[in-house]
């Protein structure tokens, strides 16, 4: 059974259709990729799955701004969670590692990780902390450094580490490679693969720059203007001529 099943999801921002009838599945223990250009609806999809869209909807409604409408259903472990609060989804194991990292700039690296670990038991937190520091060894020497003073790559490591501390069952990574150097990309891609292999966490990853991610995913979707235009395994996607020309320049 798939862990997450999104079926006929539609999200409107006022009269603009951000996500149009998207169906998506994440199999347990696999890495699923969502690719698409900017404005394809990747971030909206992540917000909708993690529940942040409900906060956005409420905020806009209170201030009389644009109306956000969400239609369709999201099944997580068999239950429809489309109207569930973000915090409740986090307790059930859906953890979002947000776009642009959003780490706490005035807290130290260690504090950032501890904040992430509030849902975890003491033993789990200790184990995950060790795991994060072994996997992202540069963070080890920066424990006391304030989050805001880290480089982009270190911040991304910290953001993923913080998400891991919350003991996710389904980890949502929104544009984890945003603005990183090729070397840092490689480190992070390997880390993501490692998280999936050693801890068995199901990962849903959205990325505009698909080239480094495509080889590590098990299953992938391509979004275009809010519509899911293509889906397949890693190999199928890489062999597709459209994907080739769009992402590999062949």
């Amino acid at each position, binding site marked *: 059974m798939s862990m997450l099943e999104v079926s006929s999801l539609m999200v409107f921002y*006022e*009269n603009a259709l951000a996500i149009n009838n998207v169906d998506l599945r994440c199999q347990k223990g696999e890495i699923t990729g969502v690719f698409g250009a900017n404005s394809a609806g990747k971030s909206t999809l992540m917000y909708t799955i993690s529940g942040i869209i409900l906060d956005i*909807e409420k905020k806009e*409604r209170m201030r*009389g701004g644009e*109306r956000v*409408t969400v*239609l369709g259903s999201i099944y997580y472990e068999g239950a429809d969670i489309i109207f569930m609060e973000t915090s409740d989804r986090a307790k059930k194991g859906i953890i979002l590692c947000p776009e642009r990292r959003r780490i706490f700039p005035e807290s130290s690296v260690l504090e950032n990780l501890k904040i992430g670990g509030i849902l975890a038991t003491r033993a789990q937190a200790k184990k995950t902390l060790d795991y994060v520091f072994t996997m992202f060894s540069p963070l080890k020497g920066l424990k006391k450094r304030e989050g805001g003073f880290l480089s982009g790559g270190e911040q991304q490591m910290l953001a993923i580490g913080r998400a891991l501390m919350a003991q996710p069952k389904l980890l949502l990574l929104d544009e984890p490679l945003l603005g990183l150097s090729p070397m840092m990309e490689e480190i992070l891609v390997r880390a993501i693969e490692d998280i999936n292999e050693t801890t068995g966490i199901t990962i849903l990853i959205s990325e505009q720059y698909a080239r480094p991610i495509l080889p590590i995913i098990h299953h992938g979707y391509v979004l275009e203007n809010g519509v899911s235009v293509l889906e397949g395994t890693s190999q199928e996607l890489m062999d597709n001529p459209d994907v080739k020309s769009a992402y590999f320049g062949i």
Partner: protein
Amino acid sequence: MLTGDRRKKRLDRSIKVRTEGLYAVSSWGEMVYLIAPRFVLIVGLFTLPLVLDMYWQRVLCSAGIYALLALGFDFLAEFVGLVCLGGAFFVGVGGYISGLLNAYYGWPPLLSIPVASVAGAVISTLILLPCLRLRGIYFAIVSFMFPLFAVYIIVALGVFGSTEGISALATFPNIWIEQYLILVAVILSLFGIRRLVSEDIGVIFQGIKDNDQAVKASGINITAYRTKAVFITALIGCFGGAYLSHLYGWLGLSLFAMDFSIMPIAAAVMGGMGSLVGPVLGAFILTPLSEALRGFGQLRVVLYSLILIGFIVYKPEGLMNYLQRKYHQFELWEKV
């Protein structure tokens, strides 16, 4: 809004789409559509003095002062990004200058009010100038302090009538001049500021609010522009103060009362921040309301606070933003 398989679609009326800022009117109906709200506001305000009795006419005058302050507060907060809690300071400075010119030099209100507005605005701006580099809450705190500051200086030095104040200033010849003077001032400032924020300078103000670093990087001196914005607000506020001292023929420490700083904020929240006309309407609703509740004694503050909390919690966009949206858009159910 989350619903089953239907959603409410909101569309701007076609005239609104065509005429945002540029008036291309093609029929009498559209002309009426554009003019009606402004007409209702202006005519409504100008007929109020004719239908009210003596007591409420006085209330209307003080509501006008609060409307000016609320307008200034909204302009600074929503269009320049400075949260200014110093409304009482503007009223006090304007009122004292105008009153003193009248009491010591015998200037008539006709002369002392304009002079006090400009001089008061210059003085207030100069005093606030060192704080203009501050942002957000810091500017709010500092501007909130100044009225208190002024009160203690006047008391400590024993100048300007000290705690007693100065009475028997010249007043206006009759109640009609009193009312129409403030109403005209409100209408002029409202439409003036409305115009100002859509001019080039308004765009810069908006930029300073949204991202002051980007505006600096474009080679614009943001302190100079903030100074201009504060001067405009102070001008309106000082006029209100100068008018007030001649309205009652009295000047005293209560010109620096906290009411003048707090009430405009309440009016702005109720009327709808960022709509300019909202705070004005808010002031014309809240001031009479607080008069009407006078019978409840101390309970009046409780009722008053409840109304405010209600607005903040359930309708933070305020009255005017809501009404404007309803006026400019229509809704229909759409099947998806």
